[in-house]
């Protein structure tokens, strides 16, 4: 392939050798790929600014035997607010880790690229917890694991019954279950109509609109537990950053309660 251009977002960056870094990039043109950025830990490196973690950047790469090498770069956007707040930093880390673990190498999916980009932008003012839920749902949708929310997964009938206070969800079957069918489905877990409504709203709305929704912490928590189970089952992932994300959220909640 020789030399190629890639509009990229830096998902991960780790120190390698004397002064190099190995990057995991999500590129618009080629999907996820790893590349080496040589000498970027030196203060004299001209490439340095263009390969910082979470930067939206235009890179020129050349193909190598094992790893491609970044030869030139120009940063397009830096999201400096991620450094100012540990909760935002952890939320961005979680989304990046999710993409790193769930997407295959070198399979272009521009929708994933734009999802990461709009999420990093929205973290500036948006609620990080809601944004992480939006990110999970939209990523699952793009990757072909969209949870079925509009009709019962046990048959082709509506799941939401008038006035039902309680619905059900099957992680294994990947969708919602009506109260009648839930009696015959052992693995069904409870799901509130409100959480179902919010998830359906997120899936049909653009991210910029969904992030404006005012969702109660209780519903966000319910979605977090459900989506976590869904990701573990369908994506087979247990993420490092998840632990900190939950720990931070819980410490925030207790702090607010105390005040």
């Amino acid at each position, binding site marked *: 392939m020789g030399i190629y251009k890639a509009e990229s977002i830096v998902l991960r960056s780790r120190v390698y050798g004397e002064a190099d870094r190995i990057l995991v990039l999500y590129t618009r043109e080629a999907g996820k790929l790893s590349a080496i950025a040589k000498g970027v830990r030196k203060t004299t*490196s001209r490439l340095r600014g263009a390969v910082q973690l979470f930067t939206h950047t235009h890179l020129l790469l050349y193909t190598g035997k094992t790893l491609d090498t970044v030869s030139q770069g120009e940063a397009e956007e830096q999201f400096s607010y991620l450094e100012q707040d*540990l909760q935002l930093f952890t939320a961005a880390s979680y989304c990046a880790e999710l993409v790193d673990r769930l997407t295959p190498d070198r399979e272009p999916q521009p929708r994933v690229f734009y999802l990461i980009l709009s999420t990093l932008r929205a973290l500036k003012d948006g609620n990080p917890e809601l944004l992480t839920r939006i990110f999970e749902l939209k990523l699952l949708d793009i990757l072909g694991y969209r949870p079925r929310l509009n009709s019962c997964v046990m048959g082709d009938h509506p799941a939401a019954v008038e006035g039902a206070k309680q619905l059900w969800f099957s992680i294994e079957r990947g969708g919602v279950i009506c109260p009648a069918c839930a009696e015959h489905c052992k693995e069904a877990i409870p799901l509130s109509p409100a959480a179902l409504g919010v998830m359906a709203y997120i899936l049909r709305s653009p991210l910029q609109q969904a992030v404006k929704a005012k969702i109660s912490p209780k519903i966000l928590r319910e979605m977090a537990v459900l989506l976590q189970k869904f990701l573990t089952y369908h994506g087979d992932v247990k993420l490092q950053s998840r632990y*900190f994300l939950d720990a931070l959220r819980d410490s925030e909640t207790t702090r607010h309660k105390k005040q």
Partner: protein
Amino acid sequence: MHLYPSSLAALIEALRKLPGIGPKTAQRLALYLLHAPEGEAEGLAQAILDAREKIFFCSVCGNLTDTDPCELCRDEKRDRSLLCVVEWPRDIIAFERTGEFNGVYHVLHGVLSPMDGIGPDDLKIAELLKRVSKGDIKEVILATNPNVEGEATALYLAQLLKPIVPKVTRIAHGLPVGGDLEFADTATLSRSLLGRQVI
């Protein structure tokens, strides 16, 4: 690798595990050591064993040392009211090279990195807070690297420290974004120290 006798192959394999060393360099080093002047290979082997046995982390600051507390912590001439927080012991070397800093250090042994599973509890933060809460420290200088993880760590520490220390500052002034401290030239590093700002 059947081309080499097994003891030589084992040496090559051991060298290859070192950071920054590929298979070709490992072969070259192994062959060099085989024919090195009398005593050189033995000296290297002994130096590795000695260092492994005698070097540990200072119980006060977390620096690498062979005495406890370390030489820097014992030095009466250093200003104990000025504390510089760094990521790694190698950053202490970088600051000492400038000759500009006369305070004491605290080594975090890393930075916050959720993706690598490194959170506040994995760094020497509890030790830092305990040290600072004794009340002798007038200023804490946060000298983590000027990259995303380093900045996030510095701001997190600033939030914890501000209620208990009179002054919390951040180096960075004049330091280019993303360059690691250990690679900064002494002039730039001195300037970043002198130009530190309250956060």
